[in-house]
């Protein structure tokens, strides 16, 4: 009951505000085209009828929520998952490269962080480059990666995944540097008094201390991976995936399809973030975390 009042109610309230604003905006955006249509057809509909028409155009400038919801529902639940129109199919294509890229990115991020924490030369030289790498617009880099890799014969899942890697290693590297350096001086002194080796200090102190940082940055990284995978589908002429769906929708002015694909993308992102958070909580609990 408390959960309903404290968590569900506020979220639902905001959702209702957004949906209401969305409807108002849809009417406003679609009205000029509708007026044009009506004028040519010589129709003079009443206000209510006019609003109804603006919300049911087949290719609206701004689709109404119920149009998107209907499209999303049909293409998610009513189609075979192998169908090229199924959002589940497209989500799966994007998800697979997201997960591969995320795995690469997390591994690379951890590796970089370990290097930065242990090698002074890397500590001084690497960070500016890592930060610079993220200031380059991914949309500019993505086609080059695809083209270069295709030239050396790497095509398919890997190039897309590498773009996800490019976006997702950064939060993990930054978070893990912080995490591996998070043990306080007293704990480090303690290990020193035991004459612990560097690797013992690493495995028994630095790694466990960095776990909360890892999961916090993995949450950011997994969302960035998904963005990377979608962006990676745009310049590749991919025929499947949420990015491809978005691109195809924009070619043919299928705005409802585009919005439905966007919704599918955000559902996947939300699921991924929730999943990482859930695994994080499980790990924290197994490490004796105080239940919140």
């Amino acid at each position: 009951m408390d959960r309903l009042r404290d968590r569900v109610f506020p979220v639902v309230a905001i959702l209702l505000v957004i949906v209401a604003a969305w409807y108002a905006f849809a009417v406003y955006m679609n009205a000029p085209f509708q007026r044009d249509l009506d004028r040519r057809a010589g129709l003079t509909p009443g206000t209510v009828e006019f609003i109804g028409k603006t919300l049911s155009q087949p290719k609206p400038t701004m689709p109404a929520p119920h149009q998107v919801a209907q499209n999303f529902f049909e293409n998610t639940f009513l189609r075979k998952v192998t169908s090229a129109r199924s959002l589940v199919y497209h989500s799966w294509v994007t998800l697979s490269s997201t997960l591969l890229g995320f795995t690469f990115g997390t591994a690379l991020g951890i590796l970089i962080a370990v290097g930065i924490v242990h090698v002074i030369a890397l500590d001084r030289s690497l960070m500016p480059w890592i930060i610079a790498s993220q200031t380059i617009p991914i949309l500019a880099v993505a086609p080059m990666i695809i083209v270069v890799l295709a030239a050396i014969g790497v095509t398919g899942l890997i190039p897309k995944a590498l773009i996800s890697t490019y976006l997702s290693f950064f939060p993990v590297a930054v978070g893990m540097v912080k995490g591996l350096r998070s043990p306080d001086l007293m704990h480090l002194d303690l290990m020193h008094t035991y004459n612990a080796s560097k690797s013992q200090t690493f495995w028994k102190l630095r790694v466990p201390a960095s776990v909360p940082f890892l999961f916090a940055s993995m949450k950011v990284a997994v969302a960035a991976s998904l963005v990377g995978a979608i962006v990676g589908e745009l310049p590749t002429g991919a025929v499947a995936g949420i990015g491809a769906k978005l691109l195809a929708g924009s070619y043919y002015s299928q705005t409802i399809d585009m919005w439905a694909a966007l919704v599918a993308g955000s559902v996947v992102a939300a699921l991924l973030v929730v999943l990482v958070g859930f695994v994080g909580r499980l790990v924290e609990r197994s490490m004796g975390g105080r239940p919140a």
Partner: protein
Amino acid sequence: MLMTVNQATATSVERNAVVEARQLGLTFQTNDGPVRALSDVNLTINKGEFVSFIGPSGCGKTTFLRVIADLEQPTEGTISINGMTPEQARQARAYGYVFQAAALFPWRTIENNVGLPLEIIGLSKAEQQARIKRTMDLVNLTGFEKKYPWQLSGGMQQRASIARALAFDADLLLMDEPFGALDEIVRDHLNEQLLRLWRQTNKTICFVTHSIPEAVYLSTRIVVMSPRPGRVTDVIESTLPAERPLDIRESPEFLAIAARVRDGLRAGHSYED
């Protein structure tokens, strides 16, 4: 250096000394210029002694303990632990160190915290278990093996950290204001337990505190220190009997020693601004 160590070994055997400091000095280089944390410290701590270091903050008592533990390097003089340099002593795991805070690893259960140094030394699982059990008994924490640190009170956490320092059975125990953050009642209780533990184990204990009653109650010898530069101003032998109930602290003998400690602190200008 080798010469000094050999000489120290020779004298240590004669006097049964555990810690020997000669003209020890330590100057920290800070951004505001050099700070003399320790100056001309001459001190011998013999086996089985309970020595307290007392003085205001900045008198170098913690620094001296950290020098023994090889956590700071002296800039002048010599110091030997069991006839070895601090570094050798640390590598030989000659001491256990108890910090101001319990410093338990929050992701380890109490028994795994106590077992941490044993894992690092590389003892067998069975030996680890046996020692964990023994030291947990010693600090009255039996039954809390599977708990995590946050599930224990501050006093119990500090007891666990003492158990951890005792676990690998070094003869020397270095304690840096271990009860400083605890309330008076818990502190009294832990003082009593620490004395009992010291008698049972026959260890040498160096104990840093800024509480006069605590120093007098626990120690066989009290080293009074004063700041700027950190130095030893007085060394007081306790005349109290080995058996010390808590109410010994109201006895005239106890109060006389406490008064002498206070005098020592005053002589070192510890009460001035």
